[in-house]
């Protein structure tokens, strides 16, 4: 029996809100396969980022489980799961302000234990691919435009040799051409390298380029 690379089973996530609890996800279940690009769409506040955080091991569900290749990530350990198997491109990018673009990427590679390649060379190659020029690579995030920061954040996630890549609005700050390039990179990662790419997006362009679109509404996930 083969397992999906990622399985969400009955995920419920509740947050305290005043004296009450607010349930954001109400029993979300879904399988994600390798070699596919998934888009998760839905209105603002529907729980897309929360779902991504649970699937990416950044948070633990109130109930339900996330399994990676048949193993509950709680058993793997959230930190180990994040380190070895998944990477996330955050909506707010979250680059480290005191590091240059290249250092942000090589640091992530060091932490996730990417071996067998020159980290600087790999970082340079990815930044090349995403259109970050030589000068910008040596700059710290505060001196980069929003679009350039987005590219560096994506390069950081791509640099980590992981099985599942999560991206929260990865093309939000990019122009249409660059967004198309990024989508192409995601497709190549999935279709040529067998990765699973899960993208939370409002962009019809990204959704259209995905292999499967999932709709999250009022805490429930449905396939289109």
């Amino acid at each position: 029996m083969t397992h999906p690379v990622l399985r969400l089973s009955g995920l419920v996530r509740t947050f305290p809100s005043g004296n009450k609890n607010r349930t954001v996800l109400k029993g979300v279940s879904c399988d994600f396969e390798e070699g596919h690009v998934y888009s998760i769409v839905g209105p603002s506040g529907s729980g897309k980022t929360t779902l991504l955080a649970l699937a990416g091991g950044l948070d633990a569900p109130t109930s339900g489980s996330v399994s990676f290749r048949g193993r509950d990530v709680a058993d793997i350990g959230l930190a180990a799961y994040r380190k070895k198997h998944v990477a996330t491109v955050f909506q707010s990018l979250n680059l480290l302000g005191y590091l240059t673009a290249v250092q942000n990427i090589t640091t992530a590679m060091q932490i996730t234990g990417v071996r067998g390649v020159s980290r600087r060379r790999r970082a340079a190659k990815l930044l090349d691919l995403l259109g970050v020029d030589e000068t910008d690579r040596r700059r710290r995030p505060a001196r980069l435009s929003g679009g350039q920061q987005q590219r560096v954040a994506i390069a950081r996630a791509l640099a980590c040799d992981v099985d599942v890549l999560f991206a929260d609005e990865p093309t939000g700050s990019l122009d249409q051409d660059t967004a198309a390039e990024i989508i192409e990179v995601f497709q190549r990662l999935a279709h040529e390298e067998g990765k699973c790419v899960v993208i939370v997006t409002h962009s019809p362009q990204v959704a259209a380029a995905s292999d499967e679109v999932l709709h999250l509404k009022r805490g429930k996930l449905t396939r289109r």
Partner: protein
Amino acid sequence: MNLFKRAWWHLRVKIGRTVLMTGLFGVICTLTLSGFLIQSAAARAAEDAKQRVGAVATMELDINALLEAQGRGDEDGGPTGVDIGSGGDLHRDLADKIGASPVVTGYNYLSEAVAVPTTSAEFYRAVPAPVGVNLDSVAEFFPVNGVRDSEQEIGFRNGTLTLLSGTGITPDASGNQALIEERFAETNGLAVGDVFTLSSGTFNSAASEVMVEFTVTGIYRDEKKSDHQRYTPPGSDPGNTIYSSIDGASRLQGKDPADGGGVIRRATFTLANPDDLDRLKADATTAGADLKVFPLAVNDKQYRTLVGPIGETAGFATVTVWLVSIAGLVIVGLIAASSLRERRTELGVLLSLGESKGRILGQHIVEITACALVAIALAVGLSQALSKGVGDALLSGEVASAAAEAAAEAAEPDKSDTSGGLGTPEAPSVEPVDRLDIQLGTADLVKVGAAGLGTALLATIVPGIGVLRLKPREILSKGD
């Protein structure tokens, strides 16, 4: 390791914060180390003072204890006109045995007697007694101080008494020897080797009057002048004070020197170290002394005079060390906590990448420790000069204050002086330590290192644990 590289990058890029933290740590470490240095200097000075002046233990009769031992305690507070018998006699032989204790570096004793004139020994009078004065009601007697060694008497030691001819009373003196003042000698035409007689008089109603013959061994001069303007009772005129051997003083008191070597009123023992008092008491008990009746009390006035001001300064330094350490810990802790709050996103990102909490905390510890190490090095360079300057300034204030207090107390009897106000022979006046000998030692470095690094660790770990117990999602976002 990656965390060291990240720490270095952060320290370099955030140079303003790095300098601020290092400067703050530098001030804390410098003040703390200065306090430690003053404390060590004070401790060294105290130890040195102990070795230098030691202490003087005095043994004399506690008459209340004696009466209690005899079952005659006076509930009204003190003996009044009772015969205490020979139980109150402190014997020279006992003092000699105690003086042989290895912790005693020198000892002396005093036997106080009074005598009345005879045909061979008249009073020296600067002004004749006026007609009508009742000579029985005034001090019409010779004060006779039986001593073991006249050279140890405070007057001879501080130069107010000078030997003019002959010799003083020495520890091996036997028989009835006398050291007389030159005014008395001139009045009676006495010279070294001459013999004169004193009468015990009838001061002690229980004993019959005895005549004691003294040989003049020496003549001395007392710098204190006689009053030539008005009548002074002979007992108060410095010209009539006689120093004698213990034998002679004992005989004037009607005591036989063959019985325990004669009686003395008080014995003083100089100790190399004030801490040796317990050993001295043990040796005194072994020698046969009843320490309830003849207690040994330490007069460490010299020691207190020497180290009093520096002790006050060290006390201030101790308070400073504690205040600075606590305030420093709070300030550095607040800065570290604030820094961690500002760097929440960074913590969340590193956690989301899978970095361990220990390594993330380790990076912050490395950063603050680097600042602390530079600050400790700065403190080592600055604190010696600072502690010297501040310490000397504080100390001179304390010395001046102690001098003012001493001057105010001079008119009052010293309660710790067990000599009864006559002055303790072994305790000449001393000047307090008024300079700090600042020396930076390994122990001081270890202490300031522990304080600095301890502050750094505490200031980072406590707030760090608070942040790192959260999940990355909680750190990075406020919920969806």
